[in-house]
């Protein structure tokens, strides 16, 4: 068995905020018809959540479900349980026009923590980072610099960010650079 490691292998950096590679994270892409009761039921067994509304991310003790597009969800679950959950989903969705795929090792995830979190995100993305524009519970797909990322606020001081693993190191360095002390625009803090 190969030894699986996350993109930055748990690295962290403490600047004006703390940037942390959150380690191995189970991620499943689920595409299908959100209005289908079968899909909603399958989702419930996988993440324990209801079907998210447009732009929403829902959490439960079992995992999270994030709205990525009108026909795509990102499921966040325990890394070691991904294969079992996918097998369950495949079974629950048999006959349904749906797609389930393991993207855990194709992605990287970072945690950004600190009072200046919204300012750090705003340095790289044109998204509205105000409390009204990006409230807790919203999944925002956008860009960081020139890279596609998705992020959400867990609380007022904590954000999580997902990107492709191939650019994971770049995103980590980018966030690190953005949180150099003395470089905050202090627009949101």
């Amino acid at each position: 068995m190969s030894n699986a490691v996350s993109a930055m292998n748990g690295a962290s950096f403490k600047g004006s905020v703390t940037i942390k590679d959150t380690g191995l994270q189970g991620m499943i892409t689920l595409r299908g018809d959100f209005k289908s009761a079968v899909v909603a039921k399958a989702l419930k067994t996988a993440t324990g959540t209801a079907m998210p509304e447009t732009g929403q991310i829902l959490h439960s003790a079992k995992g999270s479900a994030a709205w990525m597009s009108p026909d795509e969800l990102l499921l966040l679950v325990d890394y070691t349980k991904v294969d079992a959950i996918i097998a369950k989903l495949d079974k629950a969705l048999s006959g349904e026009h749906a797609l389930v795929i393991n993207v855990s090792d194709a992605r990287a995830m970072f945690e950004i923590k600190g009072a200046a979190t919204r300012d750090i995100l705003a340095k790289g993305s044109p998204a509205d980072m105000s409390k009204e524009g990006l409230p807790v519970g919203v999944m925002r797909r956008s860009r960081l610099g020139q890279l596609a990322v998705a992020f959400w606020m867990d609380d007022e001081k904590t954000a999580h960010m997902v990107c492709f693993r191939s650019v994971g190191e770049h995103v980590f360095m980018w966030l690190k650079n953005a949180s150099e002390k003395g470089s905050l625009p202090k627009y949101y803090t």
Partner: protein
Amino acid sequence: MLLLNCPCCGIDADETELEAGGEAHITRHGAGASDDDFETYMFMRKNPKGVHFERWRHAYGCGKWFHAARCTMTLEVFGTYSAQTLEPPKALINKIKKKRPDWEGFVK
């Protein structure tokens, strides 16, 4: 700077999150078409100074295509609407007519 509301995810997307897809509502002429029809489909564009209907893709967001109506001169955005249509919605056309009384109307 352009700010277009993506009708697929509801986000007011900055133009740097979007990909421009050129003029909208073009009739496709493929294999078997006359040379004239194919030339029109391939090369001929309205390029107006004023009201323009365009295709855009929310590339850094939900990834979906949609339509937008805007003024190429003032950059005023009149509205956005679903990609799954062959012409702009009536309500949007009426709204533009009110704002631009001299506009000749939607011509396919």
